[in-house]
């Protein structure tokens, strides 16, 4: 056993921190006042409320995952937590799912009602038990779904973890980071609390910057332009920490002669509802985006490089929002494939001479089946592309998934688990790890810093922009 490893009881027994919740109540934060975002109430019967909420979550898919597990252990063969801590049974996906499964069995399955001791059915006794449940589902799983793909019975452990997170979110029994980000998303329409002014100012700034770079004062980042070929949506991290990615995208669209726009509202394609299990929040954010596209009569929605944003917008959002979403959407990586294959942009791979590897984001590859397009682009914009093993839908999580980056209290365990990712990165010999997800950029940066690797993180658009041959003004169509 690694001497430096975290004692699991340090994670599972972390107390519930409600200081931000108290502050939100005192400040009369609107989403808290009107009950969209729940705060913890110690005087309520939270166990009873959890059982009521669970009853409403029992779809056929959920029940089959509750009942299907035969405890064969195949899930622990692939879970990065279990692989790094093989001595610790609480790290196996089956154990984590069993925490909600045993509650289900006790109350909703006949075996647990009649023979609870036989099927390990159990009810949480009090809020302390619920808090431990919180630490297990938020602190020891990044929702990467590697276990789901390896399960011979088709049990979707990640769905059970997400449902449990959602139940606890409804009780306010959540890590503080989850509360803070959810609050920001409810209040400002984006998960980083970027104000409208800051968003518009950043776009204007990027517009000026790109004009200077292209030496063309007519370059625009179009805002709320109607009837465009697509509406481009971004991750608020791009506004806050990495505005160059917006400029890069604009530069590429300009060279491709694209008709595009960005919305002034409904621009955040990320969705913390996916991580917190809060379908109402997920639906609210997704609906903002779909309605923006509808309002602008965009023919398509293009999603910037973000894993969970892609999964939420493309696959999950309209179910949460119960919204008839008929505007097609795609990842910007697919847009890049189109541009390069149709000759709309020209690229020079020699401008990216360093060895590059690709990290498949869980939500894009495993949950989104977008595995070949990023490679197709990378092989054309850099000279030395190297695969990481395992890859595609078998790749390991960056350890920043499932909202883990917002839950600082679990970081020591996350960094211990990141050893697998660090070894994977090191084995490639690459100097740049490219990914198509802003969350993975931060997750990988943490891993690289912690394990002191000599690798830089980039996104596909960064490398495309670097390789882009900007046509002279009279050459541009």
């Amino acid at each position, binding site marked *: 056993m690694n001497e430096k490893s975290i004692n699991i009881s340090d994670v599972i027994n972390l107390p519930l921190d409600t200081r931000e919740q108290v502050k939100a109540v005192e400040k009369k934060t609107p989403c808290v006042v009107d009950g969209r975002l729940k705060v913890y109430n110690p005087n309520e019967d939270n166990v009873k409320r959890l059982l009521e909420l669970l009853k409403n979550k029992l779809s056929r898919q959920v029940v089959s995952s509750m009942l299907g597990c035969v405890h064969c252990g195949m899930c622990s063969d692939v879970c990065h937590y279990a692989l790094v801590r093989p001595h610790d049974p609480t790290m196996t996906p089956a154990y984590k799912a069993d925490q909600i499964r045993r509650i289900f069995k006790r109350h909703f399955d006949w075996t647990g009602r009649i023979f609870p001791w036989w099927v390990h059915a159990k009810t949480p006794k009090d809020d302390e038990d619920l808090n431990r449940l919180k630490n297990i589902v938020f602190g020891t799983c990044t929702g990467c779904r590697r276990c789901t793909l390896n399960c011979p019975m088709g049990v979707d452990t990640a769905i059970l973890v997400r449902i449990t997170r959602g139940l606890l979110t409804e009780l306010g029994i959540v890590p503080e980071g989850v509360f803070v980000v959810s609050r920001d998303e409810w209040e400002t329409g984006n998960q980083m609390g970027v104000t409208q002014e800051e968003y518009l*100012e950043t776009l*204007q*700034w990027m517009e000026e910057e790109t004009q200077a770079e292209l030496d063309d004062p007519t370059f625009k980042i179009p805002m709320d332009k109607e009837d465009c070929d697509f509406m481009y949506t971004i991750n608020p991290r791009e506004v806050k920490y990495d*505005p160059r990615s917006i400029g890069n995208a604009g530069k590429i669209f300009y060279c491709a002669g694209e008709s595009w726009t960005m919305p002034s509202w409904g621009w955040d394609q990320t969705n913390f509802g996916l991580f917190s299990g809060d379908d109402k929040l997920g639906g609210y954010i997704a609906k903002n985006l779909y309605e923006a596209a509808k309002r602008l009569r965009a023919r398509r929605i293009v999603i910037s490089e973000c894993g969970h944003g892609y999964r939420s917008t493309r696959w999950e959002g309209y179910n949460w929002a119960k919204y008839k979403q008929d505007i097609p959407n795609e990842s910007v990586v697919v847009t890049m494939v189109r541009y390069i294959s149709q000759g709309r942009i020209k690229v020079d791979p020699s401008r990216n001479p360093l060895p590059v590897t690709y990290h498949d984001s869980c939500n894009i590859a495993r949950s989104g089946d977008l595995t070949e397009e990023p490679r197709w682009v990378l092989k054309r914009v850099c000279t030395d592309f190297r695969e990481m093993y395992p890859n595609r839908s078998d790749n390991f999580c960056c350890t920043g998934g499932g909202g883990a*980056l917002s839950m*600082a209290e679990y*970081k020591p365990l996350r960094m211990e688990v990141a050893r697998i990712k660090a070894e994977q990165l090191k084995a490639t010999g690459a100097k740049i790890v490219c990914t198509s997800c802003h969350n993975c950029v931060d997750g990988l940066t943490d891993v690289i810093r912690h394990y002191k690797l000599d690798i830089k993180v980039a996104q596909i658009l960064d490398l495309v922009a670097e390789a882009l041959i900007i046509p002279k003004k009279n050459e541009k169509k």
Partner: protein
Amino acid sequence: MEAIGLCSHYSRQGDWAFDYAFRLASKKDIQLNIFHWLESPFRFRREMVYLDEKKEKVVRVTDELQVKKEYELREYYESRLGDFVKVGFRLCEGNEGAELARCLHRKEYDLLVLGYPERGADFGGQQIERFAANFRVPVVMVGPDKPNSFHLNKRAVDIIDQLGLKEGEWSLIQV
């Protein structure tokens, strides 16, 4: 030149950078804007920051902490400012490079002065030399070993006559 931006850092090189920026601002009688970052070890937990430059303890950002930090910032520099009043203080959050570019867009400075802690030091997620060399305005880095060692980007070299530096004191930043 209308205003100087200084990235404040409570260190030897940070002090040398302040001394130079202050000397130039007073000589030209222009605005000196001092930017200071509350640094967080986490990407998304902006309300959790390091207590001080030692980076040993992480604390929650409260209104009180912000007031305290701004007071510390002012106190740290005010005694050295004498009767010079054209000074602005700003507590910043987020990525240094992105925030500095944002402040530049707001025209809060047109010359940037940085302390140069060591070769290859991290600044806004990249090497400080790379950041300074590629930044859109003249940049002067001071340090890392002595107070009269100045490292300039190309844009700064273009206005060398306005920077009050003697021949032999400065060199072009090597990326």
